[in-house]
């Protein structure tokens, strides 16, 4: 047991190991596809074609990816502090309230470039406030943030149903949603961006918030690896004891981290609400908060990894919708399985292949060391 394991080189730790976990997850998902009587390879081809084969496919893929970048960052920031924020779903939900507040109130009178920054702030604040109570409970009362954020997801869902149905829904609409925002509450499409690489996006809802998501990813990188606060957050994550010894206030760091995390989840609401539907629809989060967990685990909590993992899951969402036309036995729920498998293999079972890989690298490096010693001995 106490055989010294070689430290994995960075490329293996951040590239090879996640890749192995991902391949295993997809392999098991392929077994499920076999079980329902379809060909996994054909399904994979259809999926990739559906996601990247056309302009609107790419548009939709990146549109979904936008949601997952935000929620993935939300989970990752909390991970760095050693917290597991499972409440991205609820925080995004409440964030939608902030967006709707601005969109309904100012969308009719102000241009979008004034409304948008305000909406970013409002969604961020709404999401952050929703994360505040679990954060406080964790920091002060030691009640596990996982439990409280799960509870807050359900409470958020109940509150939103009440607010949308009882307060925001206009009388003349049957479905639970607000009225459509004015022109100022609608974000410009990113069709020109895809046009510039020769793709026609048609009606795909890719919009400006995609770029905001990329900016957010960059800012998270700056925060975590280039600021004092980020250093404190990581210290708390590595060793709360060391952090306390270094005079870092646990209460302060936990609350700030959770609020940043909640704010990122809240901003996810910009994309579907201001960017695509231009109104607050019930259920607009649609599980994106939970996908964020898989995305953060797969991206190893690094913004670059998260953006890549988010695009992969965007592909699964868009491609999954396309597959359903050709293979009626496979619906979008297949993604939920893949998501679960990714969380299982990249998260809970991340140590399964590590020892094997470490032993492999250990024996490789030892061999190299051995020859080096032999050479050194020979020359003397």
């Amino acid at each position, binding site marked *: *047991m*106490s055989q010294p394991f070689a430290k994995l080189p960075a490329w293996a730790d951040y590239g090879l190991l996640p890749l192995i976990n991902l391949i295993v997850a997809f392999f098991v998902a392929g077994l*499920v596809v076999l*079980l*329902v*009587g379809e060909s996994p390879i054909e399904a994979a081809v259809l999926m990739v074609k559906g996601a990247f084969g056309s302009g609107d496919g790419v548009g939709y893929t990146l549109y979904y990816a936008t949601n997952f970048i935000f929620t993935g960052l939300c989970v990752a920031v909390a991970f760095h502090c050693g917290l*597991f924020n*499972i409440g991205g779903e609820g925080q995004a939900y409440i964030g939608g309230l902030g967006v709707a507040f601005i969109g309904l109130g100012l969308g009719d009178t102000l241009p979008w470039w004034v409304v948008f920054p305000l909406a970013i702030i409002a969604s961020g604040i709404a999401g952050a406030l929703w994360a505040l*109570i679990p954060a406080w*409970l964790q920091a002060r*009362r030691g*009640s*596990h943030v*996982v*439990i*409280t954020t*799960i*509870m*807050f997801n*359900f*409470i958020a869902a*109940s*509150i939103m*149903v*009440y607010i949308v149905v*009882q307060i925001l829904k206009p009388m003349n609409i049957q479905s639970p949603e607000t009225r459509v925002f004015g022109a100022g509450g609608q974000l410009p499409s990113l069709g020109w961006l895809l046009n510039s690489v020769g793709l026609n996006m048609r009606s795909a809802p890719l919009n400006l918030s995609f770029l905001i998501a990329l900016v957010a990813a960059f800012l998270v990188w700056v925060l975590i690896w280039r600021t004092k606060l980020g250093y404190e957050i990581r210290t708390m994550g590595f060793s709360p004891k060391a952090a306390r010894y270094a005079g870092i206030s646990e209460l302060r760091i936990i609350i700030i981290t959770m609020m940043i995390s909640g704010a990122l989840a809240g901003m996810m609401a910009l994309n579907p609400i201001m960017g695509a539907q231009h109104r607050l629809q019930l259920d607009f989060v649609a599980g994106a908060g*939970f996908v964020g*967990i898989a995305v953060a*685990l797969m991206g190893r909590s690094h913004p670059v990894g998260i953006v890549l993992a988010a695009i992969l899951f965007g592909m699964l969402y868009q491609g999954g919708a396309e597959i359903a036309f050709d293979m*009626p*036995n*496979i*619906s979008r*729920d*297949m*993604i*939920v*399985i*893949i*998501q*679960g*498998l990714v*969380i*299982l293999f990249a*998260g*809970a*079972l*991340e*140590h*399964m292949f590590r020892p094997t890989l470490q032993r492999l690298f250990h024996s490789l490096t030892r061999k190299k060391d051995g020859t080096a010693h032999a050479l050194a001995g020979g020359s003397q």
Partner: protein
Amino acid sequence: MDSFITILQLFDSTIRLSAPLLLACLAGLYSERAGIFDIGLEGKMLAGAFAAGAVATWYGSASLGLLAAIAVSVALGLVHGFASITHRGNQIVSGVAINFIAAGTTVILGQAWFHQGGRTPSLPNTARFNAINLPGAETLREIPIIGPIYFELISGHSILVYLAFLLVPFTWWVLYRTRFGLRLRAVGENPAAVDTAGISVPWLRYRAVICCGILCGVAGAYLATAQGAGFVKDMTAGKGYIALAALIFAKWRPVQAMYACLLFGFLDALGIRLQGQTLPLIGEVPVQLMQALPYILTIILLAGFIGKAIPPKAGGVAYVKER
């Protein structure tokens, strides 16, 4: 008299609604008392419900459905054990994964096998756990007060409801009066001590996870073949999480778990009852408030306003032998 019957019916549906919560809550109790946190109650219940619905459809037998539910739920429990005991993975992450795998697989397989949008065909009464009329229920019915209580409240539930409530004293006995129970509690508080005594920590924890799987399977079978007539997509609808809340509310103790589940079941029954009705003084109570109340109560508990909930000390921590 009318209001008396109404109240009795309310309590009756309370019992029906709290039975699956209680089964899942006791399931979580075995696991968490052994130091394995289990967010995956929801997923195991859901997978169990699907297995029960599917097998009862194929073979027309509720008992076979129950066995299948237990088998599937235990299998998922073992996955959780494999990840969190053998490979010392994060227990929360593993539980979340199981919930997603169950949620997706039940719909995909349900659609592929039965072509009804993810649900299993409606079960005839012969393939369900039906209500059992206790002896003398009909004859005693005419006796005032006691008669209706016996007829409405105590008699006329399916066998799984009685099983759920009988499991409460049984679990208490196992936990506090048997060697296994003592070791189970010890391994959740101080696994090193158990290890020193020469007892295998992983094997003990695996057994706890299996107990948890069995009870989750029963809970799922109850949903699909006793309360309902067949599996419906996302049938558990958060019951696993409410059971988790009840477990915290009960501070990981069996008898209190029953009270917590009855309370949450009562809130549920009351919410259904009050739907669209106006109360004197208060006005119309939003259904959403009733739905959120179990969660809000748990949060208030966790905030420390109703005593303090202290989880098993070694909960969520993988045991490393070599130190």
